[in-house]
């Protein structure tokens, strides 16, 4: 028994995307292979490392665990959606504070950080640790990532935490 590909429509980083994909294709693979958005990474394929983190309808999720059929009509934000001409303040903070070493966990960390700051604009240490508890980093020991989050919290204006508006309406 095999499935057939379907048209899945959703928005990615504010722009409409239409892919022809198997319904059980992982959102992670659709982003990387069909849409050439390779910023989102695969580290474990089991929802433990968080390097595949994206925002799905504004919520932090592991894209390796999302079947693309469930993304139909939804809004996806990946790391590529945060920098336009200049670096997003969170990205800038990661650069300045040494929050990125090998960089493979960094896209997921940045997405998780944006999500954290949207929910807790001035997070306590406890909230920072919890907000990033699904993003594993093997290089930094998290210390400078926490600093980057604190620094971003101090510098990020409210507008930078807003979701980018859709380029055009898509039908559900």
């Amino acid at each position, binding site marked *: *028994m*095999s*499935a057939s590909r379907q048209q899945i429509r959703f928005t990615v980083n504010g722009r409409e995307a239409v892919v022809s*994909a*198997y*319904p*059980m*294709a*992982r959102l992670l*693979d659709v982003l990387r292979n069909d849409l050439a958005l390779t910023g989102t990474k*695969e580290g474990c*394929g*089991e*929802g*433990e490392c*968080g390097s595949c*983190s994206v925002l*799905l309808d504004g*919520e*932090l*999720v*592991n894209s*390796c*665990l*999302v*079947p693309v*059929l*469930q993304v*139909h009509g939804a809004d996806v934000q990946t790391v590529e959606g945060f920098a336009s001409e200049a670096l997003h303040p969170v990205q800038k903070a990661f650069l300045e504070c040494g929050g990125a070493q090998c960089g493979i966990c960094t896209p997921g960390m940045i997405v*998780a950080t944006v*999500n954290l700051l949207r929910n807790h604009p001035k997070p306590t240490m*406890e909230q920072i640790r*919890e*907000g990033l*508890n*699904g*993003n594993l980093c093997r290089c930094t020991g998290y210390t400078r990532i926490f600093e980057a989050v604190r620094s971003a919290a101090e510098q990020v204006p409210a507008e930078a935490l807003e979701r980018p508006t859709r380029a055009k309406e898509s039908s559900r």
Partner: protein
Amino acid sequence: MRSNPSSYELIAPGTLDAVLGLMAKEPGAWTPVAGGTEVMVQFGAGKLMPTRLISIRDIAELRGITETAEELHIGAGCSYADLRRHTTLSAEFPLLNTAASWTGSIANQNRGTLGGNIVNASPAADSLPALLVYEADLVLVSTRGVRRVRYVDFHTAYKKTLLAPDELIRTIILTRRYAGWISSARKVGPRNAQAIAKLCMAALVQTTGSQVHEIRIAFGSMAPVPLRLSNTESVLNNVTLNEEVIRAARRALESEVSPIDDIRSTRAYRVAVAGNLLEEFLRSLMTNGDDTLARWNRFPEEDAAKEILSCCGSTVWARAMAAARPFKDATGLSIRASEIWRGLSADEWLEAFRSHPRIGQRHAERETTTTSTKWSAGEQSNVTGSDDKVKRAIAEGNRQYEERFDRIFIVCATGKEPAEILKNLEHRLANDKITELQESATHQEEIMQLRLRKWLAPEGGA
């Protein structure tokens, strides 16, 4: 990624009726997928046997939490994040709220559903013991109709449940009758997040002092199913707690549970730790009447932090103290208070300093608690009552101190003559900034210890 997506069918009919209709047409042929945190892990590992999947993530009837005066109705499709956000649920069902915060990571809480966890029926799931002790009911639906079953009956054997092949869980019902009950949730895992429990406990009890009226205890990972410990409960119901009863309860627990050796832990460890957790919980209930410390031990964490804040104006300290409960006695409390105080950062110390009025004045620079203000007045009574010359000298000294160190002069004034305070002030004016910060912190620590004693034994005095 070890599965081939082209070999899997996934459909999303979009309404509950449509889903149930398909499941009735071919019972057992369709495997429901909600958030996917279980199915997609198996899929990625190449271990997903069912190849025909039906998405129930977008079914409106399965989401949402409604409340009546008596009950809370939780849609089976609610995510753990939904549960944590719900005010009534967090306030009245703390065991479930806590278990939700322990499940996976933030990202997995956004996708994983309570219904999904129940149906997956892993004995290790964090939230299932909570449902057992709250004696939840489940509403199961199919085209044949609706039935309400008790959750305690739902798991029949390892990964086997009452759910028929054409049925879905629609709602989880909790009865709102646990105001005033004391609860304790504990999870023991290999790390603090993203951990499958080695064991977890949910305990709920109604007591008057050390007298137990009704107790409910459930464990995860201690049996092939999430387990209510009814034998252990019967040892404890309607008895007054003492050491002998606690030992008997532990023995009952040991014979009632049947954990195994597996990749995560061992049988012997699980039995021992489960017994330890039970004893710790029961001991926390044993009180000598209703003394302050025992009551404070049982406060919800936010309230506990607020209550103890008066003793030392650092919010970080207060929260850490609240998190370090329960305390067996005043000595333990006092030791931990000093430890935490000494571990704070300079900024956190400064916050505490700002909660005091200037020595010789009545009001602190920032808002503080009424208790703190009252205590400050008492501590500084010697100075406020002293003669004008000394008062003026102290005021002048304060001004110089503030100019030099950019904060007010902190001194443990209780029992000290004003002249002594003045001498201390003059001496410390000569300190370098680092030494002075340390010295201020030491005085603040003394003040804190005095206030802790006053708080625990108000009639006894300083």
